[in-house]
């Protein structure tokens, strides 16, 4: 039986659609809890990606129209994505699904604070520091008074990429422990120091401006965010991107994965007090950054991808350089990892923070954190995009889900990334790097007969957002990076939602750390590689 027919046979569903590789199910609010339970228990939709609300009042203010509540869930076996929609009002109480998924509580609380629709088990204690702002995700929310709004013009917006940053944990998060004989009894996490309102900000930009600004969500994982945005727009258009662009995107995604894992090793070594290892991985990370810099020619770097392909072609000497550098890095890296794998002290120190596979699935963690618990799931293998299906690589899986497993899985992933890069570099396709309609993204200097009028005319033709809903997922360095995009009729962005596994990992951390030693708390936190800027945006 087809999945769509299965959904249609369910009585509680009012309307079923299949758009952009996602099933959209409309359901009454009374039936919502039952349907979600049914999907989880009987159709294996074990995985809750995100909860968010879209304002459909049309800016008419209070008491009019309704809000659309969305649950994004995923089946890991057949790779289908389902968006369960239900209309709610600001006066009626929405039933909570925290009984079904334990990680949904915080997501519901956040949705309530952003839009103002109350859920069943909401507490009065707020997560986000937006008491003076009101409800920012409502259409009636006015960000600026008329005439006050000032944007920097496009040429002055500098884009940036993360350098060898160690300052991961500064001012990010505040914990309060309750301790009993050196063991942690309970933990309360205070967050909200990073919340800026980027999602709302992006809704007022056009697609090119979003591309230039999306790295502000997380500068340390900017390549995946740029690629995700471009990929989403391309999929919604059904655009055929040249193979060469795909191959180059893959190389940079893998390079960023290596860089992010090196940063993880560096932080972990700092926590276990191995200063030598810390220094080595800091230097190895900066070597990877140099490859990026060589490609783009300067230190302050603009995005690599653009809608329709890649901004710049391979510069002279870059291929030789990347081969040399990666070879050297691989030798040093293998030496280090093999010595640590055989070290007893290292193994004993990292033997804490155990997460079993059921817990990892219930909380919705992704990426290396999920694979360390023994679940073999990677979007690159299970639902391959670009040329990942044609490559020969393995997905490392852990056993017990301890800190050591998370370390080893990441170490193996780095070696697999080296293999992927080598395979792609051997078979880089020739041809164009951009789709024909998007050639105006090319830099001005490279055009010999430059026609300024023609350039300006084409530059103003910004790709508009399609008037439908699209959900897209790519595998980043710390699990999936997802985007939900809804277009308006005039081609602007109606709702922009970014989600990743980091928020779920934070929830899981607060559960795992209880019962552990006080000294291990920081180590366990580091082992999830959580970037708070992605949790809060």
């Amino acid at each position, binding site marked *: 039986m087809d999945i769509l027919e299965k959904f249609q046979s369910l009585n509680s569903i009012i309307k079923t659609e299949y758009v952009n590789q996602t099933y959209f199910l409309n359901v009454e609010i009374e039936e919502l809890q039952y349907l979600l339970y049914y999907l989880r228990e009987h159709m294996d939709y074990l995985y809750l990606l995100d909860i968010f609300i879209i304002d459909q009042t049309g800016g008419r203010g209070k008491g009019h129209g309704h809000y659309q509540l969305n649950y994004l869930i995923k089946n890991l076996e057949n790779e289908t994505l389902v968006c369960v929609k239900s209309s709610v009002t600001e006066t009626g109480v929405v039933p909570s699904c925290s009984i079904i998924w334990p990680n949904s509580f915080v997501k519901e609380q956040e949705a309530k604070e952003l839009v103002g629709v109350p859920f069943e088990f909401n507490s009065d204690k707020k997560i986000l520091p*937006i008491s003076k702002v009101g409800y920012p995700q409502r259409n009636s929310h006015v960000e600026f008074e008329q005439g006050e709004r000032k944007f920097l013009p496009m040429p002055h917006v500098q884009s940036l990429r993360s*350098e060898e*940053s160690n300052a991961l944990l*500064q001012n990010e998060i505040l914990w309060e422990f309750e301790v009993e004989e050196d063991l942690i009894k309970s933990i309360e996490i205070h967050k909200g120091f990073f*919340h*800026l309102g*980027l999602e709302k900000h992006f809704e007022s930009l056009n697609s090119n401006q979003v591309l230039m600004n999306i790295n502000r969500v997380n*500068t340390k994982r900017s390549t995946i965010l740029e690629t995700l945005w471009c990929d989403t727009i391309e999929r919604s258009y059904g655009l055929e991107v040249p193979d060469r662009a795909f191959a180059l995107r893959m190389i940079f995604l893998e390079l960023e994965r290596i860089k992010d894992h090196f940063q993880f090793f560096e932080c972990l070594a700092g926590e276990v007090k191995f200063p030598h290892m810390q220094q080595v991985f800091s230097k190895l990370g900066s070597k990877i950054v140099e490859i990026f810099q060589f490609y783009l020619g300067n230190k302050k770097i603009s995005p690599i991808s653009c809608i329709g392909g890649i901004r710049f072609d391979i510069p002279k000497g870059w291929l030789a350089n990347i081969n040399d550098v990666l070879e050297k890095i691989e030798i040093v890296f293998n030496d280090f990892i093999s010595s640590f794998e055989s070290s007893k002290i290292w193994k004993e120190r990292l033997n804490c923070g155990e997460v079993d596979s059921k817990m990892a699935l219930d909380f919705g963690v992704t990426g290396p954190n999920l694979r360390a618990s023994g679940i073999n799931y990677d979007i690159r293998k299970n639902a391959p995009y670009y040329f990942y299906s044609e490559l020969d690589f393995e997905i490392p899986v852990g056993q017990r889900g301890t800190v050591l497993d998370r370390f080893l899985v990441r170490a193996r992933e780095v070696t697999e990334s080296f293999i992927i890069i080598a395979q792609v570099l051997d078979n880089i396709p020739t041809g164009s790097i951009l789709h024909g309609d998007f050639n105006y993204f090319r830099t001005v200097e490279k055009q010999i007969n430059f026609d300024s009028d023609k350039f300006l005319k084409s530059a103003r033709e910004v790709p508009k957002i399609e008037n439908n809903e699209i959900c897209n997922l790519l595998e980043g360095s710390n699990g999936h990076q997802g985007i939900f995009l809804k277009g308006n009729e005039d081609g602007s962005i109606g709702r922009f939602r970014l989600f990743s596994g980091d928020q779920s990992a934070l929830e899981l951390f607060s559960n795992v750390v209880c019962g552990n030693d006080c000294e291990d708390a920081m180590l366990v936190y580091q082992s999830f590689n959580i970037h708070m800027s992605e949790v809060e945006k």
Partner: protein
Amino acid sequence: MSEVTENNNKAEPGAKIRSLWKRLENWVSDDNLVPIIFSANCCNSMLDLLSDDNFKNLVDLYGANDQNHRPDLLIIHGHVNEKKLELIKRAYSNLIGKKYVLGIGSCLLETNGGYYNAIKNIREEIPFDIIVPGCSANSENIIKAIKQLPKIR
């Protein structure tokens, strides 16, 4: 009264040396800033471009009881929201000696970068010495600003 004046007279030679020492210490510490850094995500990476290992290690000294390494410079880069403001105010009160405050990024200007959760009139809450504008701020301008800081006070 006479005892007090006698004591004062006796202490004079030591006081002179002490005042000289203090002047020397001030002269040294003018160019020896110990920062506390409040970082947002995006501007953070620009500051990292500048920083060498010593600069990073200095950050860890915040909270240390050693009198010689108490911070006197507050670097705020990126946006400040309601929750972060409380921490920043507390950190500002912990600064010793001449207090320097350096802001980096357009979020700290009146336009607050266009984000709803960045406090608009942040300059009324915290006395900034220099704000380096830009989204994100130019690294050369940040170096210039740090060099100019001791000349301002």
